């Protein structure tokens, strides 16, 4: 049994109940579904009927696709004008605490910290942009604009789903018995690096550094295979692009050395292990079994600190990492990523059982 600070590191401005001193003990092991059901029940029990109605939705092929990378105030790619669920800004401090405990219950410790770091980055973005935002703008960033939704009935055996998302974050976890699925999930960051309590936070720093490490571990011939000879300015299969598979490009992992394959696995792990440890381990085993047929593609500079897009694509995996720079203003300070499983997004193999 290990202690885990649910609210650690999160900038809860003006909400003392969610200050970093908040402790919640979570089992170090055990099925995420069981923990998730308990945490979901606890969260829903904190809500009055109107908030509970907002936070809960039926689980079906329409509701589960409502998520986005976009900030509040912008119509999502799927046409919805608001995310599913109840936003943190409409919760009391104790409800927020229960909401975050639910998110933590279905994720790994590192995954939950990544989520907090992304929320913190968006809070920073809100603080820096709000003063100059036009009064007419409906766009909102920041912690208060992150939504939690429970789709279906939390159950230890039957499928249900948890969504937690806001600008630059869409966590979609489908749970069914001992299995849980994280795809599709979007992570992003702006700023990509910021200071918090004297510490430099890089929400997607490991993803970036590990990928640059791999690219620079390839020899010249391998790099040539991995490099796309064109610029890539955005995600190809981002939010709203469910069910699509693009033609793979880049270097096949079957052409990598054992050390390089291990480095590729380490890159992939940054997305997969957002999910709870048990489910992530099972997913990594599946990905490693298909590794020979997995492609790694790169566009942009190979110098860490400069702008570069990369993609990892295998039979049950798609990862894209796309800096959002422009031709006139390249940047590494605004990142979008996507993580998909073309064979099992939304746990489609579990839900259809």
């Amino acid at each position: 049994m290990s202690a885990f600070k649910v609210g650690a590191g999160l900038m809860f401005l003006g909400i003392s109940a969610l200050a970093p001193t908040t402790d919640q003990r979570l089992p170090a092991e055990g099925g995420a579904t069981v923990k998730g059901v308990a945490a979901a029940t606890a969260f829903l029990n904190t809500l009055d009927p109107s908030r509970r109605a907002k936070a809960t939705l039926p689980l079906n092929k329409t509701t589960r696709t409502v998520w986005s990378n976009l900030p509040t105030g912008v119509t999502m790619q799927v046409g919805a004008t608001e995310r599913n669920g109840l936003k943190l800004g409409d919760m009391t401090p104790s409800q927020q605490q229960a909401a975050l405990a639910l998110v933590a219950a279905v994720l790994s410790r590192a995954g939950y910290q990544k989520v907090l770091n992304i929320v913190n980055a968006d809070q920073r973005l809100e603080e820096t942009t709000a003063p100059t935002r036009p009064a007419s703008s409906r766009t909102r960033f920041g912690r208060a604009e992150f939504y939690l939704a429970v789709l279906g009935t939390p159950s230890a055996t039957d499928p249900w789903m948890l969504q937690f998302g806001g600008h630059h974050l869409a966590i979609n976890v489908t749970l069914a018995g001992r299995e849980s699925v994280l795809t599709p999930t979007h992570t992003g960051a702006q700023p990509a690096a910021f200071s918090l309590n004297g510490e430099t936070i890089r929400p997607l720093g490991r993803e970036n550094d590990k990928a640059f490490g791999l690219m620079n571990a390839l020899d010249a011939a391998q790099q040539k295979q991995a490099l796309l000879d064109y610029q890539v300015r955005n995600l190809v299969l981002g939010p709203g692009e469910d069910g699509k598979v693009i033609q793979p490009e880049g270097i096949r992992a079957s052409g990598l050395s054992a050390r390089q394959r291990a480095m590729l696995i380490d890159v992939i792990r940054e997305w997969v292990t957002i999910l709870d440890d048990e489910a992530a381990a099972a997913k990594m085993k599946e990905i490693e079994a298909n590794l020979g047929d997995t492609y790694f593609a790169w566009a942009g500079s190979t110098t860490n600190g400069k702008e570069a897009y990369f993609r990892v694509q295998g039979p049950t995996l798609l990862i894209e990492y796309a800096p959002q720079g422009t031709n006139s203003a390249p940047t590494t300070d605004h990142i979008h990523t996507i993580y998909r499983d073309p064979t099992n997004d939304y746990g489609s193999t579990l839900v259809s059982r």
Partner: protein
Amino acid sequence: MRRICVLALGLLLPGSAPAEAHRLDEYLQATRLGISRDRVVVELDLTPGVLVAAQVFAMIDRDGDARVSPVEIEGYARRVLRDLSLSVDDRPCALTLTRAESPSWDEIREGEGTIHLEAFADTALARGVHRIRYANMHESTSGVFLVNALKPSTRAIAIRSQRRDVQQHGIDLDVDVATSLGTATWFVIPVAALAALLIRRRRTTVSCR
């Protein structure tokens, strides 16, 4: 089936300014190509940045009322289609518009509104290797382009190679079309082989209908 719709309507409000965190002076244009034996589908997502939003919206909102009518978005979609080119084995293919959706001006001016277009070209890809060539030259000076081929849904069609220009205005695809194998493989193979012999001279003929 033809479907032209407008998702949302908005009023023109003064005083818009660049929103942080978004593309500013670029017009993001992302194309996905879906290839089947008898059709190439072109999906195009168009997202104008804040600083080019008014210029793009002016092309859509022809009557200047700050609202998008079905006629206006269809008109803009047809204008975009004129800037696209698609060919199969160097034979130009006509694109038929099937979908055009526009967000409101409120969303476009914040650099977050995406216009969705969809069109298709009828083709008749016979067995053999074909060169499919697509290019998008719409607003090419402010445009930032993505173009990708979707993985064909049947193993009978394989994309052997793909080449793009640096800016991704266009893509050349070498597509290998095999005989379609269904569940009646043992029946189909000999029949197809015989048919292939009979039509050998025409095996790489194609085209856009």
